[in-house]
């Protein structure tokens, strides 16, 4: 006497037993897909960080304000040519050159900031 899946009562233990191979195959496929996704993500993450090391964590500690490097003088030498410069004017962005005033007007230079 032979039994086929069609002849078994649906939902019985024997009926579930005939479905077991298909369930195993399905679970295997699902596991392989998940493992593949994890591997791909790991590989992509490695590619991203291999050439671009992660940035140092952002700290809330403010930068240390120190006199800029390269200072060679602590005072400005009276009688010498004033160092020329060209800087943007904040109101309109137009460049202003110190030497443009030479021969025309004295200049009061105030260096400061709003702290």
């Amino acid at each position, binding site marked *: 006497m032979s039994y086929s899946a069609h002849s078994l009562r649906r939902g019985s233990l024997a009926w579930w037993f005939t479905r077991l191979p298909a369930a195993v195959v399905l679970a295997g496929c699902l596991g392989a897909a998940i493992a593949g996704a994890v591997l791909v993500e790991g590989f992509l993450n490695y590619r991203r960080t291999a050439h671009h090391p992660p940035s140092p964590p952002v700290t809330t500690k*403010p*930068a240390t*304000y120190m*006199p*800029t490097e*390269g*200072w060679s*003088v*602590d*005072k*400005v*030498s*009276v*009688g*010498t*040519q*004033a*160092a020329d*410069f060209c*800087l*943007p*004017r*904040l*109101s309109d962005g137009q460049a*202003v050159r*110190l*030497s443009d*005033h*030479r*021969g*025309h*007007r*004295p*200049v*009061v*230079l*105030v*260096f*400061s*900031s*709003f*702290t």
Partner: protein
Amino acid sequence: MVFCGQLDRFQDLHRRYGDHVAFLFVYIAEAPHPTPESGPFSKFDPRAPLFEKQTAVRAILEEVGFPFPCLFDGGERQVEKAYAAWPERLVIVGKDGNVQFDGGRGLEGEGWGMDEIEKQLLASLAPGSLH
């Protein structure tokens, strides 16, 4: 800052001599407050892009009705280096382009001596040029 505390005196000088003397305010890097408890380190986040800082400074200048041109020394701070200007300095450049007076950093005492600055301004002007 010394300059902010003496702004009204500078405005007065500018009103009286602005037709004959150029006044230039160069905005440089901010200095810290004397102690961490006395206030925030700076009004500006040092990590903020320069244009954001420029915008904020421009807004303050408009708010206080700043009387003379403000130049911005950002990026490499080359001008600040050339004049050893941090955190503040006052210099008078004569008509010939030479440094006529170094007012220093104004950190000692009550700040810059405005009488001395006016005296230097008068000396830098040719006799009769104010008339």
